[in-house]
């Protein structure tokens, strides 16, 4: 079935275009056959409806021979033949119609004869136009779908990335612990597995409650805590309203990973990462703040993580979400502001 017929709105739009085309056709027929107004309407209206229906069949023609699939000349040849068939059908219909109308308007059938070439030519041209528009429409649909697919696969790739260096360094810590503190080594194995399993599981989903992102973040920080010991200190302050916001998965975790890699890890004595979350009606604001060594090589501070988070926000929310970066003398602050897709807070 033609996709246009799936929606009433589209059918009405299509018919309104044909009203205009029908008026033009009626004018040309009236001139060619010297019809009066009543005769013109009586003959043009059914023909126009017939044409409108016939032209929908151009979809099948366009679909069976998309440009590029076979040579351009063969496409044109097929289009011409198909248009000839279409106009033959319409002309046959018009012939029967004229015969029938002859009863109401005497002599109409005879006067219809000079209008036949005009009608045939018009049908042929309109059908060709219809095939061409269908070709365009199919091409547009295809590129739209391709764009959607590529964006989707890109997002999937971005979400799936667990930093391999984080993994290798954690495994190295476990390896060190096995001899000095086997219980802690086992503990870290479990936490690392929890983190990996949850990040894979959450990464598959489109949205997760913010509470789940926070839980993932906690597991991640527990693993990093083993590596960095006293150097890594965390201060968390989240509104209770944040928890049931719906957010894309793994949005905050890469920011905290950056804060450790480009902040804490550059400092001999480490420092404190301050995490704050505020819910303001339908807006969620998350701030990640960390100290860093301003003398560390600049290349260390431009991470792939930020770019990926920004792209994902852009793809998902357009202009409605923002990622701001404020670089102070010794502190680095990332401010994330996005629409909260979850339930209304209970006491709003």
């Amino acid at each position: 079935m033609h996709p246009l017929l799936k929606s009433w709105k589209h059918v009405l739009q299509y018919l309104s275009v044909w009203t205009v085309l029908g008026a033009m056709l009626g004018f040309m027929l009236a001139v060619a056959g010297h019809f009066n107004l009543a005769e013109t309407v009586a003959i043009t209206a059914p023909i126009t409806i017939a044409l409108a229906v016939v032209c929908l069949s151009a979809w099948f023609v366009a679909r069976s021979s998309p440009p590029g699939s076979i040579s351009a000349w063969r496409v044109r040849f097929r289009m011409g033949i198909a248009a000839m068939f279409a106009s033959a059908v319409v002309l046959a219909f018009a012939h029967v119609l004229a015969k029938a109308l002859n009863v109401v308007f005497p002599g109409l059938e005879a006067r219809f004869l000079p209008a036949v070439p005009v009608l045939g030519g018009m049908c042929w041209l309109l059908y060709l136009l219809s095939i061409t528009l269908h070709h365009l429409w199919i091409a547009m649909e295809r590129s739209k779908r391709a764009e959607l697919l590529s964006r989707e696969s890109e997002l999937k790739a971005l979400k799936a990335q667990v930093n391999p260096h984080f993994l290798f360094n954690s495994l190295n810590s476990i390896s060190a612990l096995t001899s000095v503190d086997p219980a802690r080594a086992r503990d870290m194995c479990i936490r690392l597995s929890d983190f990996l399993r949850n990040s894979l599981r959450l990464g598959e989903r489109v949205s997760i409650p913010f509470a789940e992102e926070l839980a993932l973040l906690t597991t991640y920080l527990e693993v990093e805590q083993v590596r960095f010991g006293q150097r890594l200190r965390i201060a968390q302050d989240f509104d209770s309203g944040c928890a049931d916001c719906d957010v894309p998965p793994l949005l905050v975790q890469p920011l905290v990973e950056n804060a450790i890699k480009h902040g804490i890890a550059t400092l001999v004595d480490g420092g404190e990462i301050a995490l704050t979350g505020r819910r303001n009606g339908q807006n969620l604001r998350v701030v990640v703040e960390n100290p860093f060594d301003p003398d560390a090589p600049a290349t260390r501070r431009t991470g792939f993580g930020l770019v990926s988070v920004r792209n994902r926000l852009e793809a998902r929310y357009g202009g409605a979400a923002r990622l701001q970066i404020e670089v102070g003398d010794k502190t680095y602050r990332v401010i994330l502001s996005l629409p909260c897709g979850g339930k209304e807070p209970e006491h709003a």
Partner: protein
Amino acid sequence: MIRAAIVDDEELARQILREYLNSEEDVQVIGESTNGFDAVKFVSERKPDLIFLDVQMPKLDGFEVLELIGTDIAVVFVTAYDQYAMKAFDAAAVDYLLKPFDAERFRVAMQRVRRRLGEKMQAVSASELKNAAQPPGQYAQRLVVKDGTRVHVIPVDQLDYAEAQDDYIALHTGGKSYLKQQTITSLSESLDPGRFVRVHRSFLVNLERVRNIEPYTKDTRLAILSNGAQVPVSRAGFVRLKELMGER
């Protein structure tokens, strides 16, 4: 007895090296550092035979440390990152351990260390090595210079010009100058050619510092820098300089 030092900012990473080293009978761990600055200071004071060096560390990274301590010490890199040009290290670093590693792999590294310490060090300058290890298309962001046990870090945009002096180069920055053991060619190769121009066989200038160029002798000119310093410009140097200035 091999005197070894461990340089890593993570306690557990040092822990495992200590453990493996304890089972080597001919090795004594004489110290540990948690950052690049300390490592350079420690090495120049205590002169270990062997150091285990992490790459990502506070203050100075492992490459910078290697550049400052020279190559008369056996260096084993220990890192979770495998993307650094291992080829370059085959030349001068004794080995490259990828975290996590097992005792067997560690013993292989130690065998290489003993072999290296047995023969004399290859004469590959550490600075050349660092250049070779740099990913293509990336230029140095900063230069490191050792002055006794002190380390100076010079961001490249603060470098006015460099001058070759025998086996050394003098780096001039903000009215001060620092001597470093490196050739001017290797310095020039490590810097962005769009910002630093070799204007003379023995001189390299920061393009942004050049205020004007005056004729000097028949074939040479003088570049006057914004701080008033005068740098000779050879004929070939002038061609290069003009090309770059024209682009701006």
